[in-house]
């Protein structure tokens, strides 16, 4: 069963009088509950592709459908609503709101749902328990380590129970031990909670946690280069 269907997607940026192709005729299917790692050299278009799938950006041509919904046809308002319901985001630099506590950061996406304050509290607590930070509810991001902040961010990503999780280099800013924590969590999200996870990463150790690896080179999908494969397996 496919969840994400990408058909003939292209995207380019215009800089001055020249067009820079970033993604060229991409075709990719991602199955439900799949954990996929998107790899490739810097500038190959990984983030761009991830942003398209997550509905943050729009393609120049082609179709992206998620769970049967053609998201390229949605207005930006509907797209925002769609993201709040279906996509959880994990960023390289955590992107927590500094003036909100860990608990409030996790509660934030729930403001976009119809939940009551009490329900929001329950859901946020559950999410924070999942990442083992139930004792840090009132800490502000500045009072947490990088690894802890990323775990709060993961709690925020899953609190509204989205189908799809997108992570752009989630371990890129973490030390080895914290990175391992975060990766284990992401594995659990896929295995235990049945989330579909798309993770962009440079780190072969991270990619090894995924069910599948997809390589991108200069804007086109490619086979895994030899050295990456040997490093991974």
């Amino acid at each position, binding site marked *: 069963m496919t969840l994400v269907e990408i058909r003939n997607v292209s995207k380019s940026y215009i800089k001055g009088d020249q067009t820079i192709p970033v993604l060229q005729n991409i075709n990719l299917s991602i199955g439900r509950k799949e954990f996929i790692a998107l790899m490739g050299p810097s500038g190959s278009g990984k983030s761009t592709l991830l942003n398209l799938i997550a509905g*943050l*950006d729009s393609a120049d041509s082609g179709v992206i459908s998620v769970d049967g919904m053609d998201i390229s046809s949605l207005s930006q308002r509907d797209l925002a609503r769609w993201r709040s319901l279906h996509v959880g985001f994990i960023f390289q630099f955590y992107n927590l709101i*500094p003036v909100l506590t860990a608990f*409030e950061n996790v509660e934030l996406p729930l403001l976009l749902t119809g939940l009551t304050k009490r329900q929001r509290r329950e859901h946020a607590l559950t999410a924070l328990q999942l990442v083992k930070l139930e004792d840090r509810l009132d800490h502000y991001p500045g009072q947490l380590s990088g690894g802890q902040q990323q775990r709060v961010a993961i709690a925020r990503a899953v609190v509204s129970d989205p189908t799809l999780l997108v992570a752009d280099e989630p371990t890129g800013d973490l030390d080895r031990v914290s990175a391992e924590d975060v990766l284990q969590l992401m594995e659990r999200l896929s295995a235990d909670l049945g989330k579909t996870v798309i993770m962009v990463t440079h780190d072969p150790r991270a990619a090894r946690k995924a069910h599948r690896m997809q390589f991108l080179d200069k804007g086109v999908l490619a086979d895994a280069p030899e050295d990456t494969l040997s490093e991974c397996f």
Partner: protein
Amino acid sequence: MGLILAYSLRNLLTRKMTTVLTAAGMALVVFAFASIIMLAEGLERTLVDTGSDDNVVVLRRGSGSEVQSGVGRDQAAIVETQPEIALGPDGKKLVARELVVLVTMTRRASETSANVVVRGVSENSYLLRPQVQLAEGRIPSPGVNEVVVGQSIAQRFKGAELGNELFIGGRNWRVVGIFDAGNTGFSSEIWGDVDQFMQTFRRPAYSSVIFRLSRTDLYASVRNRMDSDPRLTLEAKRETQYYRDQSRALSTFLRVLGVTLTLVFSFGAIVGAMITMHSAVANRTGEIGTLRALGFQRRTILLAFLVESLALGFIGGAVGLAGASFLQFFTVSTTNFQTFSELAFSFTLTFDIVYKAMSFSLIMGFLGGLLPALRAARMNIVEALREV
């Protein structure tokens, strides 16, 4: 959306310095605005309270104030025959011929000189102005060079203390009493016998004739009769109206000045708020991108930043008004531009002023925040996220 409100307010607290400075700029403008309007309000109140509704002031037609007016003895006599005039406790008509002249006196504090109203009065004048109450001493005896002074004169002018002598019109006048006229223009006047003053200043005519109506609704009929009497070149006004007209020019001037001045200043405060909010948006670009990614709509972002700058306006307004409210403890004196005499009054804060000053401040916050907030709401999500 309590969390969004908390988000906006906590961001203000996080950057205390810029918040304080920006709000202080707005507070100054609100302070200036409120104080000038309070001044106008205080002036109006003082002059309006000076008059009473049942009293009629008769002046020469076309003269704006008692100082410019002249009422001849024959005309004054005709006014006194009007049947609408109330009777006093002695059974005689409650009417007074008065003379108003301006004299120069020296202020005690600054040694500078100012014009002061000297009012020649008759016994009835005191009955006509119940708000004028003797506080110390006695009322001057007729035919003697004696005066009674308002408490504001006694406090502020040299030689106006009880028992001293004032040099007015080339003669010495003993201060035999001080009267309390509350918050009215009479507090800034010197009263003495009208006939003594007529001689002293060699005036052939009175300034005005004041009388009490036996019924307040008789004003129209007495006015009509005097207007149509060919012997009279006079004009009758209710005393309240007379003082309201006197205050109008100055208070309008103050209000126009207040509004113009603060509009100019507010420009600076708005630009200040704009710069502050602009840098707030620039510093939080990544945050904005994150919120948008999570699914918050543009209008929520717009609102969050508008709330922030409105809160700045609110703080500024509250601080400015708090400062201005202290002015109520001060009495100021200004020149009554109608008579060019010195008039003492207080800053008066009313609910209307609070309301206007707060609205003004919130509008400054709104205008300062609008463009930055719009910019924040219109950001491209992907580009904003790159700024983390």
